[in-house]
């Protein structure tokens, strides 16, 4: 009935996990078992659970994450205290010992019938001491520290060998001569049957000790019940009180914890790798342990960085080279353009100089004539008026030519106005007459074609075309030069045809190249100027062979270019 009620009010029981060091724990097995049993009874809220871990497992700092308490030997505790924050709650104290600081020691035994006649520790020099594989790591520390204290500090003084745990194996090792002595826990040793014990002889027994067991080394702190970081202070105090209240089992009980500074000193002094192995690895140690990988990764990284830098440099260099090449080409083109411009302006200046001489010569002639007639007294009003009108016309022609060249030299766009192309071309044609005042160049285009552009440019273009045509026909008996103009949608087409010699195809190609006139002498720039002007109007020049002979040059000009 009580049970059912109590069950009804049963609180949720959480696990209380107690980690136990496996190696060497059989020496306090009954104490642990008793403690566990009592703990399960006394605490209704917690379900205690024992978990055994080997020393090797404990070296993993994560193993204790889930545990609340830990039962371990002094050396393991020292290591865990230092690196995992383990805190002793109680320690094992044999009933015979005065405190938990003297709870453990080690017995070094040899075979009683040994042929080696080993009676002292000194005689163990160059011998092999066997240590059971399930022995606490404390055994080894005890032995090494004992040898050190007795003046045999060299690590090579004796050899330690891990041997199987069973007694039979131990004997086999002795028999086969693999080991000359064995280091054992005296508690376990005393529990052996008397008959077996007699086969062994304890080396340098300390019998004056209050610790009644026979042992070779001095005494050290023994097993410890410690709290992990997972438990609170109150719980620790309750556990401590509980443990200390327990009666001793097989002469072992829980008492206050000892002074473990000595253990730390010994472990540090012995430079025991086992002690250090509990430590969380520092970065340097990780690096040192994985030096090959680190080196490999570093090498790969270095290679990668080098490759990156190298390719960056290469790209930079290539880019620079490309940029320089571009710059060079650009400069060359610029140079070429300026040369071309200078040459065009120079050519124009040449033509214009020649053309400018004409009005200037005319002006000079009219002036001289007026002066001459004045001095002779035969200057009539009609002649003077004629001469003056001619002077005005010729000086206008001169200034037009100069202005035009200036515009070209400065690269200014000329003023474009709407004008009658037909009238302009017809007037130009009228200038070319023979002695009989008969026209030799005929305008046959449409009338009243208007165009937006620079009349001077159109005039220069047309005059150059006509000049070329006249030169081509100069040797003919009946020269025929026709000028036509037509409107092609928004563009203007000026065609000048002659009946001069017929060009073959290669000569026609040559015509398209500027400055390559078929004329041997002469200015030979007419076509170049025609092309330059047509480019300014976004147009082009076409050459068409006439039937039966001669050439037509057609220039297309856009007024909105």
């Amino acid at each position: 009935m009580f049970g059912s009620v109590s069950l009804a009010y049963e609180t949720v029981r959480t696990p209380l996990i107690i980690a136990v060091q496996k190696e060497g724990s059989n020496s306090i097995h009954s104490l642990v078992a008793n403690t566990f049993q009592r703990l399960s009874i006394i605490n209704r809220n917690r379900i205690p659970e024992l978990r055994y871990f080997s020393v090797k497992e404990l070296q993993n700092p994560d193993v204790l994450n889930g545990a609340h308490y830990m039962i371990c030997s002094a050396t393991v505790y020292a290591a865990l205290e230092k690196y995992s924050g383990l805190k002793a709650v109680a320690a094992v104290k044999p009933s015979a010992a005065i405190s938990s600081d003297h709870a453990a020691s080690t017995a070094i035994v040899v075979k009683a019938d040994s042929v080696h006649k080993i009676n002292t520790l000194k005689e163990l020099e160059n011998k092999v001491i066997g240590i059971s594989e399930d022995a606490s790591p404390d055994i080894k520390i005890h032995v090494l520290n004992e040898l050190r204290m007795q003046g045999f500090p060299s690590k090579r003084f004796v050899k330690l060998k891990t041997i199987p745990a069973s007694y039979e194996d131990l004997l086999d090792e002795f028999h086969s001569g693999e080991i000359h002595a064995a280091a054992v826990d005296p508690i376990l040793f005393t529990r052996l049957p008397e008959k077996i014990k007699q086969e062994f002889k304890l080396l340098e027994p300390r019998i004056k000790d209050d610790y009644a067991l026979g042992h070779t080394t001095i005494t050290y702190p023994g097993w410890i019940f410690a709290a992990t970081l997972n438990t609170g202070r109150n719980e620790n105090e309750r556990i401590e009180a509980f443990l200390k209240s327990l009666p001793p089992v097989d002469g072992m009980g829980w008492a206050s914890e000892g002074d473990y500074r000595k253990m730390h000193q010994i472990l540090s002094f012995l430079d025991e790798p086992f002690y250090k192995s509990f430590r969380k690895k520092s970065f340097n140690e990780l690096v040192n342990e994985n030096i090959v990988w680190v080196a490999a990764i570093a090498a790969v990284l270095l290679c990668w960085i080098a490759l990156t830098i190298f390719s960056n440099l290469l790209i930079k260099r290539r880019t620079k080279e490309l940029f320089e090449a571009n710059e060079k080409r650009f400069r060359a083109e610029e140079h070429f353009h300026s040369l071309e411009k200078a040459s065009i302006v120079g050519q124009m200046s040449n033509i214009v100089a020649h053309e400018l001489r004409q009005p200037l010569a005319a002006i000079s002639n009219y002036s001289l004539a007026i002066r001459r007639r004045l001095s002779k007294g035969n200057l009539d009003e009609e002649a003077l008026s004629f001469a003056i009108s001619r002077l005005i016309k010729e000086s206008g022609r001169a200034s037009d030519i100069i202005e035009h060249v200036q515009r070209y030299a400065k690269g200014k766009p000329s003023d474009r106005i709407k004008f009658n192309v037909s009238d302009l071309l017809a007037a130009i044609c009228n200038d070319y007459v023979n002695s009989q005042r008969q026209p030799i160049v005929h305008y046959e285009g449409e009338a009243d074609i208007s165009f937006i552009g620079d009349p001077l440019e159109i005039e220069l273009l047309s005059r150059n075309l006509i000049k070329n045509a006249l030169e081509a026909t100069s040797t003919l008996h009946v020269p025929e030069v026709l000028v036509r103009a037509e409107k092609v949608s928004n563009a203007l087409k000026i065609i000048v045809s002659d009946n001069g010699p017929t060009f073959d195809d290669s000569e026609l190609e040559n015509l398209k190249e500027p400055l390559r006139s078929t004329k041997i002498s002469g200015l030979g720039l007419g076509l170049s100027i025609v092309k330059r002007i047509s480019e300014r109007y976004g147009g082009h020049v076409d050459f068409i062979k006439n039937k039966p002979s001669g050439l037509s040059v057609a220039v297309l000009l856009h007024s909105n270019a």
Partner: protein
Amino acid sequence: MEVKNSFAVVRIVDDDVGVRDSYKFLVESDGWFVRTYASAEDFLAHDDPSVPGCVVLDVRMPGLSGLELQAKLSGLVHKIPVIFISAHADIEMVVKAMQKGALDFLPKPIKDESLLSSIEKAVVIDRERRRRSTEKSEILGSWNALSPREQETAVLIAEGLLNKQIADKLNITERTVQVHRAHVFSKFGVRNAVQFAQKLMIMNSSENV
């Protein structure tokens, strides 16, 4: 100014109509008749070479140049005097033109004095040439009208021989020589042997006017 009274024409050849007209106006200042031509070809096609005068040529012209025209003119019966005008003349060109009988080579810009005095000189020369050319043909006509015996006698008269010497040379009588002499003198319109010798010199001159 005497030369202008008789008919002469100054021919001006230049490809630029404005320049051409201005030369015309300038040359007309001195009362010359002027004809203008746009090119050498135009000149060759339309000029009347029988009209006395001179040619004023621009060396640099499209088509046939002034120098080429000069070469063509020198092949004619009547060599018309040529005056060159050039802005681009070099010594070589001038020498060549003068060797071929150019009358003058004037640089541009032209000076009215030099142009008009050159023209006057040229017209005088042309007219003189034409006059001598006429005289020569007249003398030649008279000469051809003589009989062969008279021609023999005339040569000796021109050499300054006396009638008696001529008679001895030709094995004829002195009287016959006297008749021939009178006939020859009347034919050529001369009064003495010296004047007759001059006429024969003109006839025999190699100059081809």
